[in-house]
């Protein structure tokens, strides 16, 4: 598996201006009556990429996936797969296969029959079909279930049959609609890594639709965060989390404390934000252009905020004082809700790295929260 890791480490075709996208979505709009599901959306997905479309339900991610598969026709714009314009090409002639959220296994066929279905449509010789089916069963570790019908399988087994069925034809692109949505948490976590390894081994391009951000962060090379039919940001999981480009993305991914204030001073690459409502001054790196007097946003993740009973050294900036209002203990970490004088809650998380802590923080303790100048994100959108 070492080779996979080194491949993943170097994989970043989106930074290469020479690289040609494998799937190009060009200004695609899809309307259902008055409702615009996908709004003038453009997107490039590269060969062998594990690409996630992430968004709340109704953001248009599934519609986009269905347009890639050919079940919906764009109202305007076009989609190219491997350089070929897909307009007017029906689903059964596209070089893509889709794994459905409901798995859509044919209930009247055995596991074998399900996997062989696509191969039969291609007119593959019988002995080759048998060999390919056997190979697929081995790949998803279902050899002894070949003769079973879908209703005789557990949820996890069904999911693997669905996967085997859509990779059996060796498509160029695999589309996965909430592939792990129906599995329980533990199985889902295992299956995430199985999917990643499978994608690497087969060298396929995966486009996965999910509403589960952890799933998207774990599996994908890049994530497209979608809202109201538009792509808000396309970036690697780390970039989306650490450098969101807008308040929406910052708020959508993970936990965040949001501030809004006026830019008071900009100098030497730093910016001071006057947060009047919380009587706080935030000093952060001026990663975006902004002028004095402009209203700006600031986002900071809970795990980047320190919490203590003692007043921090430089308490004139990036510091607030309040009452410990709520404690959420997760085992691996604890999230503290600190209530400021004006009632505002600031979330601060700390890792429980040692088993016992002397004098732990308790409810109603008065605490200081404080963070570094490079810990948060300046937002102007």
């Amino acid at each position: 598996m070492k080779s996979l890791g080194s491949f993943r480490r170097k994989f970043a075709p989106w930074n290469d201006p020479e690289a040609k996208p494998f799937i190009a979505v060009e200004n695609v709009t899809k309307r259902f009556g008055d409702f615009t599901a996908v709004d003038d959306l453009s997107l490039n997905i590269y060969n062998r990429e594990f690409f996630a479309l992430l968004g709340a339900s109704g953001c248009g991610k599934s519609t986009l996936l269905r347009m890639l598969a050919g079940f919906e026709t764009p109202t305007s714009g076009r989609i190219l797969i491997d350089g070929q314009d897909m307009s007017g090409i029906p689903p059964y002639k596209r070089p893509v296969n889709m794994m459905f959220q409901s798995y859509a296994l044919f209930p009247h066929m055995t596991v074998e029959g399900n996997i062989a279905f696509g191969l039969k449509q291609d007119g593959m010789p019988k002995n080759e079909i048998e060999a390919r089916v056997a190979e697929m069963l081995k790949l998803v570790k279902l050899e002894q279930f070949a003769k079973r019908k879908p209703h005789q399988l557990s949820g996890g087994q069904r999911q693997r049959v669905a996967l085997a069925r859509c990779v059996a034809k060796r498509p160029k692109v695999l589309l996965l609609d909430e592939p792990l949505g129906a599995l329980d948490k533990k199985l889902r976590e295992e299956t995430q890594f199985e999917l990643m390894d499978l994608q690497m081994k087969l060298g396929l391009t995966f486009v996965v639709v999910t509403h589960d951000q952890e799933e998207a962060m774990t599996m994908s090379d890049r994530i497209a965060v979608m809202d109201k039919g538009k792509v808000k940001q396309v970036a690697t999981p780390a970039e989306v989390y650490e450098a969101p480009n807008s308040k929406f993305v910052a708020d959508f991914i993970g936990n965040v404390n949001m501030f809004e204030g006026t830019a008071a001073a900009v100098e030497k690459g730093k910016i001071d934000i006057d947060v009047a409502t919380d009587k706080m001054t935030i000093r952060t790196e001026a990663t975006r252009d902004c002028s004095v007097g402009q209203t700006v946003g600031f986002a900071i993740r809970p795990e980047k905020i320190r919490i203590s009973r003692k007043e921090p050294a430089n308490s004139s900036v990036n510091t607030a004082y309040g009452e410990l209002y709520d404690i959420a203990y997760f085992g691996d970490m604890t999230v503290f809700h600190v209530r400021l004088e004006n009632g505002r809650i600031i979330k601060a998380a700390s890792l429980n790295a040692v088993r016992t802590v002397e004098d732990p923080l308790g409810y109603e303790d008065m605490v200081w929260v404080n963070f570094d100048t490079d810990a948060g994100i300046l937002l102007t959108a």
Partner: protein
Amino acid sequence: MNTTWSRFNIASLVLGFAFLYLPIVLLVIYSFNESRLVTVWAGFSTKWYVSLFHNQAFIDAAWVTIRVGLISATFATILGTLGALAMTRYTRFRGRMLFSAMIYAPLVMPEVITGLSLLLLFVAIGLDRGILTVTLAHITFSMCFVAVVVQSRLVTFDRSLEEAAMDLGATPVTTFFKVTLPVILPAVVSGWMLAFTLSLDDLVISSFTSGPGATTLPMRIYSQVRLGVTPEINAACTILIAIVAVGVIIASIANKRREVNRARDEQAAARN
């Protein structure tokens, strides 16, 4: 669950069943009557069954009925299934409400009206009345029933099965025959059986639309009864009842067995 039977429960059960089955039981008993008089019991005999099988008119009528039933049920099933598919698939066309209401209307339409209008149509286009017109008439009224039965199955049909088939390279036609039809087959089969039974016992519409040489069994029985009830008719009816009863029992046993097997399989699947 309450397993004790109150006297009231028993009484209402007996009364209900008596109301339903007493006439049929009487009919079956008197079909084994020795006497020619239907209402006077004169000992057990199967002679009316023997004489029934020597009655050429009855045999002919039975043969006509079966032929009309098989052909009309088959065509009604094809047309009704297509109609149901259209009604469930194209949900966004103008006047869909009117269309679906029109599918249901013949179910409640008085048979006399259906029969009469068909008769007028056949006369207008100059079609000689006979086995063809009866069959056509039976297709007309029974396809609505098939459409309703199949439609109720299609409403719960998971469209992603068809999409999956097409995604795997199957053309729409292949998808229909390899995926859609096998999945909805139980509904199509029960639609066919419903159409067949409807055709089997239809009297009114048949009377309007049939002609010489196309007398169906219900028509034969009805005309015979007008000349006086003979135990032969009782025997014919008993055979009909037996056929229907056996059919119903086989269907429900098969259904029950399938359910039990399925429940057992699902439990087994959940365990491993």
